[in-house]
């Protein structure tokens, strides 16, 4: 990658250097994790209440 481009990209993170399909998979993965996190909170409340 050129210096110019590196400077431009600085701060934008790895996400902006991923092809579109990988970004989509990344978003899907994060959403799945958030949903599973919510499921964990939902299930673990049983322990908190008991």
């Amino acid at each position: 990658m050129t210096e110019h481009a590196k400077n431009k990209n600085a701060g934008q993170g790895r996400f902006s250097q991923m092809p579109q399909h990988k970004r989509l998979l990344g978003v899907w993965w994060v959403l799945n994790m958030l949903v599973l996190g919510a499921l964990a909170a939902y299930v673990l409340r049983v322990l908190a209440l008991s």
Partner: protein
Amino acid sequence: MNGIALSGLYLFVVLIPLGLAMAGMREPRGFWDEAASGMGMLAFAILLAEFLLSGRFKAMSGGVGMDITMRFHQLLARSCLVLAILHPFFYQTPFGRALPYDPTRQLTLAEPGLALATGAAAWVLLPAFVLLSLARDKVFKTYEGWRWTHGLGAALIAFLAWHHTVYAGRYAQDPALAAVWTGLLAIALASLLSVYLVRPLLQRARPWRVASVEKVADRTWEAVLKPEGHKGLEFRAGQFGWINMGHSPFSLAENPFSIASAPAESGVLRFIIKELGDFTNTIGNVPPGTIAYVDGPFGNLTIDGIKATGHALIAGGVGIAPMLSILRQLEAERDDRPVIVVYGNRIADQIVAGAELRSLCSKDNRHLVQCLSEPPEGWAGETGMLDGALVRRVFGSTPDPDWLYILCGPPAMMSGVEVALIGLGVPSDRILLERFTYD
């Protein structure tokens, strides 16, 4: 709606039921039973959210693009399926009658009955439905047949799952949660009605007529549509529409095609259509005067409103259609920013609008690079595939990151070019792409 808003809305819809169940006053059952009920609720909520990500809702797909929305729909189907399949296996509480001293039904699961039968039916149908979608091309003779099955099948599974959730679900005995489930089901079914009924009705009031269909290259045709009694379609260069030629507006025999004409050519719509299957193989037989319907515009392969010091239009095969629209519009607006058009085909006979492209790119700051993988003798352009190597030859090792790079063509070409551009330092948000297939 941009990606973040769309993800936020998805999470909101999917997590509301779980949140309401947690907030409800009902004592939870044991750990494993709660895991089972949680998975069931999530699976059903994702199933319902899928309806909004499946149809042609500009509010949903307008920001991220139709192809991304459809891909997201396919990925979420997998999440839904896993949760739905696991759901029944985690229950440990026995089935049984409601006990008089257990009004909140902590000690027994609903007795086997209709509500369990509907759940079981949905549980069996859902994997079959997903498998059918994955094997679509092999199972269905026509794309329309698949669309009918997918729409009606989804509605059936959603209804069965709703019945099971509301009548067998313990938390859904809470009226607020039951109302949320019913509301979400109603929205999901309304989305189907909107696609299958309301839109066709609106389209019926705005018919088009085929003005001409002419062969413009090997197995490639240009179809021109004229509005019949209305002003036409407002769209942005690079967008596409679902086109129905010669069928009732209620028919699902419609196909997505990029608009190749510029918005500045008020009224008519031009399409470049490549012979590829049932409908497109017969496009040459569509007589002028045929009634047509256009649902659109959709898609965000468009440069409007995006700051750029120049444009690179990179097209493979019939992917030239949206590029022609963009180039024609730039010309109509006398836009003097630099443009590089990179256009790849297999053979010279496949080149569409070659003379026009050469004329549009004859200005000082415009440049046309043509590439053929099977060039004829004496071919003066580039040879080989439109791939990363060609991108490096055309744009050098430092493509300008302030330009916009617009890609459309076969999937392998787009992936190769996208990866090459990113490798050369172009941020991915400077690359726009539109896929012609969703799989």
